[in-house]
C-alpha cells in the first residue's frame, strides 16, 4: 500500500535530503541557483522519482518508461540531484554543475542528461511536448504516463492553454500535470502581476480532471496520483499549493530568492536548517 506512513515519512525526509544536496551542489559552483522554485517542487519530484514513476535507470530510454517533462526547466538543480540519486546521472557530475562543458546547467538538456526526456528552459513549451508524447503512447498502445511540471507563472504563457485544449480534445488521460502553485514568479506575486485565479476553474473549463493539494504533503501527492488512475478520458492536473523556497527560512515566500547565491553566513544557516529537518525525520 503506497500511502503507508513509513513510506511517507521516508519520502518527506528524502525531499529535504534533495534540498540539502541541491544547496551543496549550487554553492560549490557559487554562481547562484533557482532556489525558490527548486525548493517548492521538492516533495512533488521526490514522490515522483522515489515512488510513483515507472523508470529504468539502467536503461534510461526504455520505451515503456513514464515520461517526465520539466517544463519549468529552471527547476533543474534539484532535478539533476534527484537523477543522480536515482543513478541516471553519475554523482561526480554534480561537482561540475554550471561549469564549462558540464552536462548539468541551469536548464536540462536531454542530449546531455541520461533520464531527461526533454530539453527545457524557455517557459511554456513542455505541455505541448507532453501532448505529443501522450498521443504517441496512445498510438503505440503503450501504458506509460506523461508527467509535466509547470510553474504557476509559466501558466501565463498562451502556449500552455493551447496545449491544455489539445490534451482534453484528444482525451489524453495519460497526462498528469503538477502545477507548482507557489504564488510567486520572477517579478513578485502572480496575482498582482498577471492574475491566474480562478485557476482550478480554468483547468476545469478546459476539460481537465482537477485536484488541489498541499504540495509539501507527500501523502496528498500520492493520493492525488492514485486518483488520476481512474480513467475518464480526461487529462489530469494537480494544483500543488506550495511555498517558494520551502525549507530555508529566509528564502520562504520571498520572491527575491527566485534566483540567487548565498553568502557564507546564509549558506551555513540554510544547511543547518535543512540538516535539522533531516535529523528530525531520522529520530
Amino acid at each position, binding site marked *: 500500500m503506497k500511502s503507508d506512513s513509513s513510506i511517507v515519512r521516508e519520502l518527506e525526509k528524502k525531499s529535504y535530503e534533495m534540498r540539502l544536496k541541491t544547496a551543496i551542489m549550487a554553492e560549490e559552483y557559487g554562481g547562484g541557483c533557482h532556489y525558490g522554485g527548486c525548493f517548492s517542487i521538492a516533495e512533488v519530484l521526490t514522490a515522483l522519482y522515489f515512488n510513483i514513476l515507472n523508470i529504468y535507470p539502467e536503461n534510461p530510454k526504455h520505451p515503456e518508461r513514464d515520461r517526465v517533462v520539466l517544463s519549468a526547466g529552471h527547476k533543474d538543480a534539484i532535478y539533476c540531484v534527484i537523477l543522480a540519486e536515482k543513478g541516471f546521472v553519475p554523482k561526480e557530475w554534480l561537482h561540475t554543475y554550471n*561549469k564549462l562543458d558540464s552536462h548539468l546547467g541551469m536548464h536540462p538538456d536531454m542530449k546531455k542528461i541520461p533520464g531527461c526526456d526533454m530539453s*527545457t528552459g524557455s517557459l511554456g513549451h513542455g505541455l505541448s511536448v507532453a501532448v505529443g508524447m501522450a498521443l504517441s503512447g496512445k498510438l503505440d498502445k503503450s501504458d506509460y504516463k506523461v508527467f509535466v511540471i509547470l510553474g504557476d507563472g509559466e501558466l*501565463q504563457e498562451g502556449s500552455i492553454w493551447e496545449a491544455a485544449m489539445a490534451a482534453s480534445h484528444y482525451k489524453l488521460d495519460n497526462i498528469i500535470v503538477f502545477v507548482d502553485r507557489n504564488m510567486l*514568479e*520572477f*517579478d513578485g506575486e502572480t496575482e498582482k502581476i498577471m492574475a491566474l485565479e480562478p485557476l482550478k476553474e480554468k483547468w476545469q473549463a478546459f476539460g481537465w480532471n482537477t485536484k488541489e493539494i498541499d504540495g509539501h504533503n507527500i501523502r496528498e501527492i500520492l493520493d492525488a496520483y492514485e486518483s488520476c488512475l481512474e480513467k475518464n478520458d480526461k487529462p489530469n492536473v494537480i494544483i500543488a499549493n506550495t511555498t517558494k523556497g520551502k525549507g530555508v527560512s529566509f528564502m520562504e515566500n520571498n520572491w527575491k530568492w527566485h534566483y540567487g547565491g548565498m553568502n557564507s553566513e546564509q549558506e551555513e544557516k540554510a544547511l543547518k536548517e535543512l540538516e535539522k529537518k533531516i535529523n528530525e525525520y531520522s529520530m
Partner: protein
Amino acid sequence: MAEKVNQAWTFADVARLSDREIYGKTLVSLGTTNKNIVVLGSDLMYSNRTSDFLEKFPERAFNFGVAEQNMMGAAAGFATCGKIAFVSTFAAFASMRACEQVRTDICYPNLNVKIVATHSGLTMGSGGTTHHATEDLAIVRSFANMTVIVPADAIETEKAVRAAVEQEGPVYIRLGRAAERLVFQNGYPYDFKIGRAITLKSGKDVTLIATGLEVYESIIASDILGKKGIDVGVINMHTIKPIDQETIINVAQSSKLLVTVEEHTVIGGLGSAVCEVVSEKCPVRVLRIGIPDVYTVIGSPEELKDRYGLTGVKIAEKILNIL
C-alpha cells in the same frame, strides 16, 4: 572627475553600471519629459531594469507576466494609438518567442515600438542554449522597417536609447547582462547617429569591424597585433541595420583584410551584413569571427567567449593564423 553625462546621474555612476541599468535609468529620464512613453515587461522587469520605470511611473508600466507574445502584440496596439512603446525581455525571447508578433504586428505596419533585448549572446552563461541569444541579429535584421542597434557599452546604450526615441518606427537594441567594459572611457564625447559607424582606430593592414561587447575585445586584439607590427584598425559598428555602407567600402579599399567580430552566430549577423556590402560594392577578403553553427555549451560568459574565440587574445591569434 565626476563629469555629468546627463541630469539623471553622474559619469562615475555610469562606469559602475551595466548596459541594462543605464537603460533603466535612461528610460526614467526620458519618461519624465515624454509622457507618451509606455513600458511593457514580461516578468523580467527587475532583471531588464525597467523596474526603475515601473516604480517611478506605475501607471505607464505594464507587466504581462511570462507572456512575451502577448506583450509584443500589446506594444503594437499601444503604438497604433500614438504611444512610444518600450518592450523588454531576454534577447532569446524577444527575437524568437515573440518573433512573428515582432515581424507582423510591429515591423509590417512600421509601428513605433522599441524592443530593448537584454542578456544577449552568451551572457547568460550557464543558462545554456535556451537562454543564449546567438541568432537574434540574423532574425530581426531580416525584417523590413527594423532598425538594429548593438551598443558597445553603457554610455553608448544611453545614446542608442535616446536616438531610438527620436526616430519613428521599430528599433531593436541588443544589450548584454553584466557590467560591460567601457569602450568610450573618460566620457569621450561623440555624436551617436543611427547607421553611422565609429572609427576608433584606423589601420592599413587589417580592419576589425566589431559590434557590442566585441568592440572592447577588438581593441585588445588590435593592441596585441600592433605590438607585432601589424597595423589594425577598429570600427565600432553599433548599427547593424541600416549598415554603414560608406564606412565599410572605405575600409575595404584601405585595408588588406576585413575581420568582423560579433557575439552571435556567423550566419546572418554583422559578418553577413558586411559581406553583403563588400561582395557587391568592393570585393575583398572578409574573415567572420563569431559563434560557429552549433548550439553553444554552458559555462561562464568569460569562458564561453574564450571557447568560441571571442576574446582579444583569440581574435588576434586567429588573424595571425591567416595572415
